[in-house]
């Protein structure tokens, strides 16, 4: 427990900054909604006037643009992007920090096994992810409720917003794996920014291309928001893939770190 407490204490400041930034991004876009919601309703009418084949081809057949959720879906994408960076950052940093800050000779000579240290650190990441999600979820719920003129589908809202949790868990576990896989990490952010943006761009690319194989590469596509709104659920194959990958990353983190030589200073 002492390790968990220590990690949470050390991560407190950056957690607050991240929570505020995520909600900041959310608010920034959502506050534009009232000014463009009229436009959006006009578009809806235009769409409905299109032939049905066309609507289907573009996946807009059952689109409800007049609903605030369609705009929220768009906004959330940027929250997911930022949240992914936060999570990956935590994942990469939390174990490697002991080596980077040269405190490994302090922590790892204490009477705790490496597996226990890793478990506690993973737990600390999870707790921080949960806090972030609780914060974003509440803030989003308030904003969406305040801005919506009609009733909206709360279940869909929850599905959308919870994808942040899953995406963050994915990137955190990827980060953990990367941090034990690489021999030595000196600065965290270039790695996490780079990886997240590459995945994000593959996702953007796939928004246009709609390629199934490409969709399996980017975790942003596992929780593709437009797909979720169509199915009203997460895609089971993607969810399974998510689960397997996260499990594998965590397993390898334990496995590799137990065998790792900690460099002397």
């Amino acid at each position, binding site marked *: 427990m002492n390790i968990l407490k220590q990690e949470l204490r050390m991560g407190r400041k950056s957690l607050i900054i991240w929570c505020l930034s995520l909600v900041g991004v959310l608010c920034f876009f959502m506050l534009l909604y009232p000014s463009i919601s009229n436009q959006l309703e006009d578009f809806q009418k235009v769409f409905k006037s299109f032939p049905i084949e066309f609507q289907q081809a573009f996946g807009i057949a059952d689109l409800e643009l007049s609903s605030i959720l369609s705009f929220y879906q768009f906004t959330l994408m940027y929250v997911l992007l930022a949240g992914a960076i936060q999570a990956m950052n935590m994942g990469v940093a939390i174990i490697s920090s002991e080596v980077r800050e040269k405190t490994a*000779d302090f922590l790892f000579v204490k009477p*705790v096994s*490496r597996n226990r240290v890793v478990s506690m650190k993973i737990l600390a990441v999870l707790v921080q992810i949960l806090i972030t999600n609780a914060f974003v979820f509440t803030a989003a719920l308030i904003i969406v409720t305040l801005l919506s003129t009609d009733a909206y589908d709360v279940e869909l809202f929850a599905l959308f917003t919870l994808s942040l949790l899953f995406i963050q868990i994915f990137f955190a576990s990827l980060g953990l794996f990367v941090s034990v896989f690489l021999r030595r990490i000196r600065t965290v952010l270039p790695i996490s920014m780079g990886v997240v943006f590459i995945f994000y761009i593959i996702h953007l690319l796939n928004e246009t291309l709609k390629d199934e194989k490409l969709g399996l590469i980017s975790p942003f596509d596992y929780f593709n928001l437009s797909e979720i709104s169509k199915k009203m659920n997460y895609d089971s194959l993607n969810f399974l893939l998510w689960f397997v990958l996260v499990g594998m990353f965590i397993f390898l983190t334990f496995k590799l770190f137990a065998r790792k*030589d900690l460099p*002397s200073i």
Partner: protein
Amino acid sequence: MNVIEINQLTKFYGKHRGIENVTFSVEEGEIFGFIGPNGAGKSTTIRALLSLIHPTSGSATIFGKDCIKYGSEIRRDIGYLPSEVFYYEHMKVREVLNYSASFYDNVNYSRIQSLAEIMDLDLNKRIDDLSYGNKKKVGIIQGLLHEPKLIILDEPTGGLDPLMQQKFFDLIREENEKGATILFSSHILSEVQKLCGRVAIIKDGTIVRVENIRDMQKHNYKKFTLEYKGVIDVHHFNLEGVTNLTLDKNTLHFLFKGDINRIVERLQGQSLLNMLVEEPSLEEIFMHYYQKED
């Protein structure tokens, strides 16, 4: 009983040698010196003992238990002071020490205070405001606060002023008298000489020898200084057992180990101005290990 037993311990970093077939043991209650030049493998051995690194082959046990397998259990009773100390920079000294203490059962927290007083360390300062020497003091306290049965010191005195060094040695002796076993790694022989009973000498990753420090000085080596009147034939003393043979104008120095009569034989018929036979200092014996095979 042996507290530490190291058996054929080998560590390679890829092709690069760390240590090779290191074997020695440390008995309960002794202060054991571990000496060797920089890069000889002292830290590698110690880091393997603490399971910070994994040996390529061989094994080591502490308190009769395998270092890697029972690492966390063993470390309950180990205090370690690394040669370079780094702690969580944004924390206060007291917080770091409390954090350290939180890993052990039944720690007497007042010991932090009393140790800090002995070492003259301000507990309310932040780690990043500390000087190197003061960080070292934090290291000493976190290594001793849980009253470990085995204390491992890796070149501990760097950065401490002579007064602090003295206090530190007193502290170590005190712990030793209370029953703690101490593994003391250093390249400074005089401090090893002052403190230790036995020493292991490591060079190029292998143990050159393990010896009782008194034996090493007294029973084995004699240091000869011969002052000549005229020309000196250096080769005259080129016999087995003679080492560190140096010539300085008309003075000859060497170390000798073996039957003293062989030297006396050689001395006959030599025209000497002066002659000195002394106990060599550990440094001089040590140089001999260093220079061999170079």
